[in-house]
């Protein structure tokens, strides 16, 4: 009737969500993640393998004939939402979202089955801050099949078996699968999504796409990434809101639970309104991505702009309303805050997405 995709979770999606949540709760609670991060060994390969095996999380939108789960970006968004609630360090965004989207769009069928099955982790070699609509990167050049260059701040680089590298050669842009590369870890604001700088020193690669197809595959991946990231941000915001509500119910000051103070009640209620808004936009973006709806670009820009800011707001309120406790290392609030702030920059700041939207809906900045 309205042309809207369903914004509700189907029973299958609900079941997927519960499975993922159960797994993550059992295997990667925040304190174990913090210990891993402190030990400088953040990646949780076990959990990633288990998730991939039990839910197909490594290749949800990949057709079954290509080794995937034969589901769609909707189910991917469900997993992203749960990963936003958790802090498990798994290369979901880098491999199961960004690289998978690029490979699917490029029609690649050799690497994709391995990635979709979770046997190998592929990572799209762009700075995590790259936004949909930005120009094709020029940091890697290719001659023949040899790639040379350096890509900074690549998300999940430390977990990569294969890199998908956008490169510029004599014939223009192309996209390559490369297995020989060096990763220098960066100290990242978000300790639970470590970044790495990737160096290619004449590594030989396999060309996956070239010319306009390479550009389109990269753009598609960035668009999908921003759209799915909105669900991660939604999950994070929900988790922060719920944690804060629970704390305010149990924490007493001046003989009353903090949650009985009206100023705090109103702030949480306002935050709940924002989270409600974020939820609708994230579901809409995922629904549009799943069906390649013509409204996808608008839906993704709206979701990215809204959910980025709501996640940051929720994490900031979580810190503030936990008082001193929320500012300590031994409470998860700071981990959510760092993830939320990094996610706000990842795949385009809200500002970039609003600017993109202005073009899409014909509301130009300029004086005509």
């Amino acid at each position, binding site marked *: 009737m309205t042309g*809207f995709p369903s914004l509700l979770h189907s029973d299958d999606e609900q079941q997927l969500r519960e499975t993922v949540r159960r797994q993550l709760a059992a295997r990667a609670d925040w304190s174990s993640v913090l210990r891993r991060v402190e030990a400088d060994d953040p990646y949780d390969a076990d959990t990633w393998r288990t998730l991939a095996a039990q839910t197909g999380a490594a290749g949800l939108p990949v057709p079954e004939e290509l080794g995937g789960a034969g589901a769609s970006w909707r189910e991917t968004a469900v997993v992203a939402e749960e990963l936003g609630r958790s802090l498990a360090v798994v290369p979901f965004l880098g491999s199961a979202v960004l690289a998978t989207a690029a490979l699917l769009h490029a029609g690649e069928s050799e690497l994709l089955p391995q990635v979709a099955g979770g046997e190998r982790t592929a990572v799209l070699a762009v700075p995590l801050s790259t936004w949909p609509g930005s120009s094709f990167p020029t940091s890697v050049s290719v001659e023949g099949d040899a790639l040379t260059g350096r890509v900074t701040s690549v998300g999940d680089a430390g977990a990569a078996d294969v890199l998908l590298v956008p490169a510029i050669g004599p014939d223009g842009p192309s996209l390559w699968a490369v297995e020989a590369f060096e990763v220098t870890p960066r100290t990242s604001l978000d300790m639970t999504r470590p970044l790495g700088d990737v160096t290619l020193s004449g590594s030989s690669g396999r060309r996956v796409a070239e010319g306009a197809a390479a550009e389109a595959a990269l753009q598609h991946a960035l668009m999908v990434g921003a759209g799915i990231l909105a669900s991660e941000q939604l999950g994070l915001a929900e988790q922060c809101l719920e944690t804060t*509500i629970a704390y305010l119910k149990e924490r007493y000051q001046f003989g*009353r639970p903090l949650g009985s103070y*009206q100023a705090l*009640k109103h702030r*949480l209620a306002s935050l*709940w309104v924002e989270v*409600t*808004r974020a939820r609708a936009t994230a579901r809409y973006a995922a629904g549009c991505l799943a069906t390649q709806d013509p409204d996808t670009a608008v839906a993704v820009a709206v979701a990215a702009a809204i959910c980025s800011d709501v996640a940051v707001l929720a994490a900031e309120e979580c810190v503030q309303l936990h008082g001193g406790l929320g500012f300590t290392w031994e409470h998860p609030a700071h981990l959510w805050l760092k993830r939320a702030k990094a996610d706000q920059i990842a795949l385009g700041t809200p500002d970039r997405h609003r600017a993109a939207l202005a073009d899409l809906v014909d509301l130009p900045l300029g004086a005509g």
Partner: protein
Amino acid sequence: MTTTGPRTPAAADPTTADLLDRVQSLLASHPPAEVDRLDFLRARFDAGLAWVGYPVGLGGLGIPRELQAVVDAALAAAGAPDNSPRSIGIGLGMAAPTILAHGSDEQKQRWLRPLWTGEEVWCQLFSEPGAGSDLAALGTRAVRDGDEWVVNGQKVWTSMAHEARWGILVTRTDPDVPKHAGMTYFGCDMHVPGVDVRPLRQATGEAEFNEVFLTDVRLPDTDRIGEVGNGWRVATGTLMNERVAIGGQSAPREGGMLGMVTSVWRERPELRTPGLHSELMEQWVRAEASRITGERLRQQMAAGTPGPEGSAAKLMFSELNQRLSGLLLELLGEQGLAYDDWTMRRPKEVHFHGNRPGYSYLRAKGNSIEGGTTEILLNIVAERVLGLPGEMRVDKDVPWKDLPR
């Protein structure tokens, strides 16, 4: 909503086909093109096709209310007149469910039919100058005198009072008990002596609303709705229906206030500045997100699992209306300094934002007050949705007459 009365066989197994048969026989016996509008509406009521969820004999068939859409569509297709639901919203949305739930059989028979046909307009006599958000503090006194009640007091924010034949009225009948316990609910005849309706002018210059002064108004006890002292419970039910009605509205992309701003933006490039563009896009995104939120709510309701998102809808609506209408004036610049008309007018319908920039700016200020203030709604969300503790109450156990005010 409660449905009462015996169910017909049709009610036990309602089918679209059966309903359409009933519609066809109504249209056959009362061809819309030939009969008087009111005669048609009365016949429709008597055929049980007014509100099919209501009981048989009271305009309905005692079948699920969702089936009403089938009837409405078929009648509209046949060019039948409707009962102008927008102009009798208070009667349909608030008075009728209350009468159905709490009224006597005589009251239902007397009131519902002319209410539905629009012959008798209803208004709502709830708020008072001293009892706004805290409705239960109201002080309009009703004192029993034999078979009658003598009512004195003042009501406010009463839309349609000047056109109304009846009002739903909450009064204080026992000031010596705590406030929620001493109230009684009436159907108030607006034509009896002592009812004085005066226009209440508002910031926009118009008077959408009225003040109603009640001076020694005598109401028969037969017009009392519900038990003596049970008025708070009856009124709470009435207000539930109001909230549902307000939360259900929606708009297309760039509908409402946003559309007014984007039209100006597109049509008058000379007004554009980077700073206003930034604000415009922020609000565009928020408005679109609210629209999608509304759609999600409707999907939930359609799936039979309404979520608490309804409470968010009004909060989003008033915030957006206010920000966008303010932005529009800044964008318009010189034109934003103008107003169209300060003449005192009495609009026929309540419109929440209007379509003239200055008017919209002012009218939008009412959105966060009318139908539950933003502050009260945030309390409700915090307590009912998030489960946070209620406000500390000092007025629960104090006789109404001893409350500080």
